[in-house]
């Protein structure tokens, strides 16, 4: 059941991402999807801010793998070199778990927004950086900033909506 749910979500996310391009820029809804998976992969007994040295290595591996898979699909669909998306989304998956186990002590909507802003900017920057490095493509830095800004703006509401299971 969970497999079908996530497969459906992946399809729906990529469908939205390719169908809607506000101001001519592609959205980065897949970042929000990986972030959601990271949140949901935390064990049901886990609550943000517990100080007993809790560690969920299984959740980190799952989330990283999911992110890498989503990134792989994104790279295939975009038709570019396969790798930047895998790496960036894999990292987003890993950080989505780590941030709730080791960085923040309490989830609030504001912190959720800040996290998703950081993750979206990180995702955009890693992809652009790797594409420039691996593909030797020329980019307009203003356009890149504009695209990341729009992606961040559209992902911000997800920082409020998506929250850990026990909050």
């Amino acid at each position, binding site marked *: 059941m969970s497999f079908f749910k996530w497969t459906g979500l992946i399809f729906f996310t990529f*469908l939205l991402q*390719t169908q809607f391009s506000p101001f001519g820029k592609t959205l980065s809804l897949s970042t929000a999807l990986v972030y959601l998976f990271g949140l949901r992969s935390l064990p049901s007994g886990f609550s943000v801010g517990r100080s007993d040295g809790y560690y969920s290595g299984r959740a980190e*591996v799952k989330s990283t793998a999911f992110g890498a898979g989503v990134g792989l*699909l994104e790279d*295939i669909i975009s038709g570019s*070199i*396969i790798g930047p998306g*895998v790496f960036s989304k894999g*990292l987003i998956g*890993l950080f989505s778990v780590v941030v709730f186990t080791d960085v923040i002590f309490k989830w609030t909507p504001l912190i959720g927004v800040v996290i998703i802003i950081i993750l979206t900017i990180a995702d955009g920057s890693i992809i652009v950086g790797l594409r420039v490095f691996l593909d030797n493509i020329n980019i307009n830095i203003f356009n890149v900033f504009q695209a990341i800004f729009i992606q961040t703006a559209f992902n911000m509401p997800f920082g409020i909506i998506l929250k850990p299971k026990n909050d």
Partner: protein
Amino acid sequence: MSKGKKRVIIFLSLFFVVLLLVTFQHKGKSFGFLVTLSYPFDALNNFTTTVNMTITEVWNTFGENRRLEDKLSAALLQIQRHDEIVRENKRLREILLLRDSSPNYIATARVIARGPDRLLNTILIDKGESSGIKEGMAVITTKGLVGRVHSVRGNFSEVLLLRDPNFSVAVRLQDSRREGIISGTGHRYSLLEHIPFEEVVEKGDNVVTSGLDSIFPPGIPVGVVSRVRAGDHKFFQSIQVLPFQTDTKIEEVVILTNAGASP
């Protein structure tokens, strides 16, 4: 193993996977088999793109339809204006011809309103004393007699129409040359009076002014006989005449001076 080390392993695993993928591609090899992963998505994407485009096209068609309707309305309005100008041009040419062919011509005027007096059948024209118009002058169009000037102001005049009961004019039956007098009735038709029973008058006979009243120049078309009735108790026939010029269709008129008077 500490959680830091585990995280480094996860990170390095990810890094090496990506490195392998990139190296593989840089050697000119492709992941053709991976593309199959995107087939279901491509199919769905194509479908939604088609639906999206169809909806957009339908929406655009509505907008275009609205724009074309607006353009069509504007074009129809322009055609109507053009037709109106052509008709006006034709009327004015006719008036010009009438002016050139009328020795008693005084002025050409436009009808600006119905007369203010409810008891009289009158119209107002936009020329008055300043254009040389005086009371009693004949008012005609290219079709025929309209009436006579009833009152004059500086820049406009009031014209008493042919169908008003206070109006009368000396006329002649065009074919038989029999004289008579036409009087308004307040209805669509006027009455031709003083035509004796022995005179044969038929429906369709034309009536023109005779000029014998010293008001209207002779030969102006007045109307056509529409009904002839010979009453037993009267000395004259009762003849109805339909004016050539319907007073609801008058736009421009020509004012003529009295018969016999020099312009």
